[in-house]
C-alpha cells in the first residue's frame, strides 16, 4: 500500500499545461500580430520551464519517498 501519491498531482500539472498550450494554438490561428508574438514570448514561454522544474522536483521527491517507505515498512 502506497503511503504517498505524487503522481496524481504531477499529472494534473502536466495536463493543465497541455490544455493551455492547445488553447493558445487555437488562439493564434486568429491572432497573428506583434502583440500575439510578444505575449507568447514574454508571458507564455516562461510557464513551460516553471512547470518542468516543478515536475522534475516532484519526480525526484517521489523517488526519495518511495525509498523511504520501502525501508521503513515491515
Amino acid at each position, binding site marked *: 500500500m502506497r*503511503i*504517498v*501519491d*505524487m503522481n*496524481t*498531482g*504531477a499529472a*494534473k*500539472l502536466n*495536463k*493543465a*499545461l497541455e*490544455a*493551455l498550450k492547445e*488553447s*493558445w494554438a*487555437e*488562439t493564434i*490561428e*486568429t*491572432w*497573428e*500580430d*506583434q*502583440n500575439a508574438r*510578444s*505575449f507568447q514570448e514574454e*508571458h*507564455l514561454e*516562461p*510557464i513551460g520551464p*516553471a*512547470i518542468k*522544474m*516543478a515536475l522534475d*522536483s*516532484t519526480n*525526484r*521527491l517521489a523517488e*526519495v*519517498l518511495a525509498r*523511504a*517507505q520501502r*525501508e*521503513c515498512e515491515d
Partner: protein
Amino acid sequence: MDGPANVRSIEAIRDFKAAMLQFAETATNAITTLQQEVMHFTEWLEHDRPSYWKNRVRDSYDTISQARVALENCKMREVAGNRPACIEEQEALAHAKRDLQQAQEKVETVRRWTINVRHEADEYRGRIGQLERYLESDLLKSIALLDRILTSLEDYASVSTSEGDAAEMITENSADENSADESPANSTKQGN
C-alpha cells in the same frame, strides 16, 4: 499595442483568457494536492513509524523471554533418560532474536530517513513555492494584460462599427439624392 493589429476573432482571445484562468486554478489545486501528500507522508514517517517499530522491539523482547522459557523447559525434560535436542525451541529463540535485531535496526532506519525526508521536503517546498508565487503574481499580470488588449480591441471594434454605420448612412443618403435627381422634374432642371 505594438504595431498594427491582426485579430480575426476577439472571442478567441476572450476564450484564451478563460483558459489562462482555468490553468491558474488547476495548477494551484495540483500544488495543494502535492503539498498535502508530502505532509501526509512526513506524518507517517515521523509519528506512525517510530511507534510501530518501538512496539515491535518491545514485542520482540517479550517473544525472546517466552522462547527462553520454552527452551529451558524443553531442556529440563527427560524422555527415556535422554534430554531432547530442543531444536525447535532453539530455532524459535534464534528467530525471536533476529526479529529484535531487525526491529532495532528499523528504529534507526526510521530516524535516518526522518532527517533525510525533512531536508528533501523542505527543498521541495522551496521549489514548488516558486511555481506557486509565479501563479499568484506573474500569471495574474499576464491575464491583466490580456484584459487590456481585449478592451483596446473591443473599443476599436465598436468605433469601427459606428464609423461603418455612419458611412453606410452617408452612402444611402447619397443614393437617395441621386434617385431624386434622376426624376423627370429634376432631369428637366438639370437639362437647363
